[in-house]
């Protein structure tokens, strides 16, 4: 079993997962042991000792995954710890069991990647990584598309009315960051702008389907970064892991062929420039 020097895309793929993990652990420590967590096993894992234990398990598994040391096993271990942490996090909330969304795009991409690895065991290593990377991109695109579906399914055309986004922003207009308050009050005072932004957001999310095609990944990734900056300014939801993962998937894919190492022996896992959109 060898460990190869990871290419930049793999490292940053892991970095996006670390960002998501850090956000989740911060949330768990910030909320503390709520009334539901109490004395249960999940409650024990919600405290500082549990967070430390989970973090060591996750980060060591993730490092092995990034370094391709027993890649699939390490990735599955990292995913298992993420699943456990999500259960702990959900136990902290008494009404909404919704799991903090910041981690879901990187975790979904990891799940897609692992699935791609597991179903391509008869291929060469660099081909397996390519298939896995494409699968991760497919999941990322689906996450945006399902977000649009949810809005249209639950709100229908009323999602595009000014009052929908107006109320959402209005509930957050007293932000602790003054510039955000100013932006939010400016937008709320302009109903046509509220409607236009609601249409734009759903349109961008529906376009998630284009992320399956490598030719459209780069422009779409940039579009999503802009979307998230707007969401941060107007609604206060900051998803840094998404803002890292989308450009990484689009701009740093695995190379088409393994680069020959010194002596002409192919060395899998080293950068070769990546595939270019045509």
């Amino acid at each position, binding site marked *: 079993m060898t460990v190869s020097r990871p290419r930049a895309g793999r490292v940053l793929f892991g970095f996006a997962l670390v960002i998501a993990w850090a956000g989740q652990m911060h949330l768990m420590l910030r909320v503390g042991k709520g009334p539901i967590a109490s004395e249960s096993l999940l409650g024990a894992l919600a405290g500082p000792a549990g967070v430390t234990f989970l973090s060591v398990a996750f980060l060591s598994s993730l490092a092995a995954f990034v370094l391709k040391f027993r890649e699939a096993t390490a990735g599955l271990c990292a995913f298992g710890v993420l699943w456990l942490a999500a259960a702990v996090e959900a136990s902290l909330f008494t009404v909404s069991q919704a799991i903090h969304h910041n981690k879901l795009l990187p975790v979904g991409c990891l799940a897609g990647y692992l699935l791609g690895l597991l179903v391509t065991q008869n291929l060469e290593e660099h081909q397996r990584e390519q298939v896995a990377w494409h699968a991760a991109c497919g999941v990322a695109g689906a996450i945006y598309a399902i977000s649009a579906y949810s809005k249209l399914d639950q709100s229908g055309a009323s999602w595009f009315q000014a009052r929908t986004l107006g*109320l959402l922003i209005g509930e957050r207009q007293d932000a602790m960051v003054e510039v955000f308050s100013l932006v939010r009050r400016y937008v709320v005072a302009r109903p046509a702008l509220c409607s236009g932004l609601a249409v734009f957001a759903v349109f961008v999310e529906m376009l998630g389907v284009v992320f399956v095609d490598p030719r459209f990944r780069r422009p779409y990734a940039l579009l999503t970064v802009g979307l998230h900056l707007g969401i941060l300014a107007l609604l206060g939801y900051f998803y840094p892991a998404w803002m890292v993962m989308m450009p990484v998937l689009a701009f740093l894919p695995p190379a088409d062929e393994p680069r020959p190492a010194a002596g002409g022996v192919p060395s899998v896992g080293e950068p070769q420039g990546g595939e270019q959109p045509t």
Partner: protein
Amino acid sequence: MATPRAAVLAFLLYYLGSALLGEAFPFSRFSMYAGAGRRTEGATFAVLADGKPVRLRSLTRFSALEGSFEDPKRPTSLGHAVEEARGYVLGHRASDAEPPGPVRVEIGYRRIAWTDEGLQVGDEVTSLRCRAWNKP
């Protein structure tokens, strides 16, 4: 370049899985505020320390709690913030032997509505009063 089959299959798998299963990690419909289109009213969530807005996490060792964290009478998209505040306050209570802190804390809501004239801001409703200490 042909569209990679793996990307299409993963897209379909995650999309259909989320649509059918809902919130089943790692699947999700990312609903969050997706149902907000039905609302005409809402509520802000506010924490006041001695009458001034503050971050709840700047306070600690809460005591003498009066009232509850109950949701406002109108729907709000800030339920997660209320839940987080509840967990924080209950997880950072003062010991029974400790005297009440010097800071007067009010946690509550301000009602808002959307009318033909745009956003209207209504009364403030305090749902929980307590005492706390500023974090050092």
